[in-house]
């Protein structure tokens, strides 16, 4: 393996231009039994001293869907940018499809497609022209280019709007066009940076389905970043939880959740003082296996909060009814009903949020500072609730609500990082930027 890699390196540096296709073939052969991505000690320290990515190492198998899950500012996008050769690592290295990101950036770029978080289309050009630009700059010949443009427009169902300027597209159409563009040169690896940020539930589902089909039909390896736990849960073969630039967990969604066996009983109290009083009582009970204080709901009206709640559009059911064709297999449930379709993995927490709508979470935003929620991990939670309520009564604090659910990735995230994933970490400017992306995605027609 090492030998072939070295040989290829020599090839790559000596005759870059025309040898491209040949290099790709060699790379495919040589990586057949190896990892399509290998990352070793990748680190990025920005000029302002922020250690965005802190010595991470991992490998990705060909054909895998790997998700980077973490809050904003965790280092997900920075990692992707380094793997895509857009950003130079401070130390460490990686190979993508057998090419070294430092020494063979052109090989890496030919092997990957990248769908950015921010829109990167030319709004003045038509959809077809955007794809044509991409095909040409990747050196696809005229006939191949035309055929693939038509193929990809079919894949993302934009054929009928292909000759309209992109500025007339809705947010979901733009995202689909970006995905089509990322696939036009048949990459071996597709990077998706927050592919459904700010999109409505129907469009999100539709994009999930595209991603799954691409992965299955063409065996494209997919790396995606998200801070939606339900997205990671639904799509990914493996999930890598990233926090503060480090990998804190890497496993399949099921195995991650299995780390928290049992049920989560979630208690909301009137104020922080109540938690201080009740926590020692719970800590004394051996049938409570874990106690987590939920952070990040202490009055910061964050973009992420807004998005999560808006994602569960109030009256999602009526939207689903309005656009039955958009919903793959008619899986979009009305608010509060249960998910039956998909891979059946939609966590109950999403339903709760939809049922609660905006009010449910925003009511907690303005409260007095500090966490007001406790999550207890117990066996057979349904039967424990009366006992828990009795304990709370004995201590004499006011309990506002009780919820029971199976452990979700939110709970896993909380247990490995000690923080809620919806706790914003990004700067003020970052949150403004994200808000703009979300608005852009939501706008139906622009300009």
């Amino acid at each position, binding site marked *: 393996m090492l030998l072939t890699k070295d040989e290829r390196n020599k090839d790559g540096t000596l005759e*870059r*231009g025309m040898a*491209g296709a040949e290099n790709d073939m060699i790379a495919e052969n040589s990586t057949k039994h190896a990892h399509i991505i290998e990352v070793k000690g990748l680190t990025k320290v920005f000029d302002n001293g922020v250690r965005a990515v802190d010595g991470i190492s991992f490998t990705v198998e060909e054909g895998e869907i790997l998700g980077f899950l973490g809050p904003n500012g965790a280092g997900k996008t920075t990692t992707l940018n380094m793997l*895509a050769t*857009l950003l130079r690592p401070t130390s460490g290295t990686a190979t993508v499809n057998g090419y070294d990101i430092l020494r063979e950036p*052109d*090989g890496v*770029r*030919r092997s*990957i497609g*990248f769908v*950015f978080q*921010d*829109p*990167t*289309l*030319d*709004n*003045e*050009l038509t959809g077809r*022209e955007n794809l044509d*630009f*991409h095909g*040409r*700059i*990747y*050196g696809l010949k005229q006939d191949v280019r035309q055929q693939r443009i038509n193929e990809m427009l079919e894949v993302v169902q934009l054929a009928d709007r292909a000759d309209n300027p992109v500025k007339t597209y809705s947010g979901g159409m733009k995202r689909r066009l970006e995905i089509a*563009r990322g696939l036009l040169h048949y990459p071996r690896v597709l990077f998706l940076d927050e592919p459904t940020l700010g999109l409505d539930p129907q469009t999100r589902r539709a994009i999930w389905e595209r991603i799954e089909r691409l992965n299955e039909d063409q065996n494209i390896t997919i790396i995606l970043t998200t801070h939606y736990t339900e997205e990671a849960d639904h799509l990914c073969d493996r999930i890598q939880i990233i926090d503060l630039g480090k990998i804190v967990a890497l496993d399949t969604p099921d195995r991650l959740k299995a780390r928290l066996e049992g049920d989560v009983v979630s208690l909301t109290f009137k104020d922080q003082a109540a938690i201080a009083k009740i926590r020692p009582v719970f800590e004394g009970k051996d049938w409570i296996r874990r106690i987590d204080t939920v952070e990040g709901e202490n009055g910061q009206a964050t973009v992420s909060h807004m998005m999560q709640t808006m994602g569960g559009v109030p009256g999602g059911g009526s939207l689903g009814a309005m656009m039955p064709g958009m919903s793959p297999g008619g899986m979009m449930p009305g608010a509060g009903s249960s998910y039956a379709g998909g891979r059946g993995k939609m966590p109950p927490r999403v339903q709760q949020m939809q049922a609660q709508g905006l009010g449910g979470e925003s009511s907690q935003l303005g409260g007095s500072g500090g966490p007001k929620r406790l999550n207890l991990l117990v066996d057979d939670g349904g039967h424990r609730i009366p006992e828990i309520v009795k304990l709370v009564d004995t201590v004499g604090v006011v309990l506002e609500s009780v919820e029971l659910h199976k452990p979700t990735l939110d709970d896993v995230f909380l247990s490995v990082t000690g923080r809620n994933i919806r706790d914003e970490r990004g700067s003020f400017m970052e949150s403004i930027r994200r808000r703009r992306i979300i608005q852009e995605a939501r706008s139906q027609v622009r300009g």
Partner: protein
Amino acid sequence: MVQPLSAQAIYVILLREVKLYVRARARIVASVAQSFFFLAIFGLGLGGFIGRFGGLNYLSYLAPGIIGMGLLFGSVFSGVSVVFDRQFGFLKEMLIAPVSRTSIILGKIMGGAVTASIQGVILMTVAGLMGAFTPTLALVAGALAAIGVMLLITTGFVGLGVAIGSKITDFHAFQLIATFVMWPLFMLSGVFFPIDVAPFPLQVAMFFDPLFYGVELLRGCLLGAATPLLGPLGWLIALGVLVGFSAAMVVIGTYLFSRAQV
């Protein structure tokens, strides 16, 4: 670091610039109208007061300078549009492609030069229709030579625009650049008055304005040798200054662009 060039990449980026230019009709109309007003109001109005100098009527004298104005503003704007590409994200689409940054920026510069020169040809036609040039066979050859000069001038100023665009990150800075870079370059280019009537300090400033040499060359091409300054040697000097300026701007623009963060 040697960066391999890709003709295909340069071509497709150039093609995009031309498409965007042709589609931005409002911009073309505004620019042509602006030049027309200058020619009509200054050329005919002020011209009636000034009379003739050096055997030229004022409209004829003014026309090459107004063409130069269109070239200057068009090309600097085109270069600075790397800021827009960055702001609207399209820059990332170019940078992720398996081509060198040098290819990308050369495509951008050539595209800007071509579109600004198209603008120049339109203005030249407008001025011609207004009677600024004497219609002779020599004018046809002169006009062709003028197109070559236009490409040379615009290449330099697109390079300047790219250099500026790689350094600034928002639109507000663009106002400052228009006021402190573009307007002085325009006013000092000898568009309104010949250099020999200017006081000495102004003459020095005009000698440092690359557009001055461009306008002198255009005047030479379109009006014959009836320019106050340029003899046979002057032609060569002006051409040499422009070539040097353009080459330097392309190199500086390319360098600053390749170092700029996305």
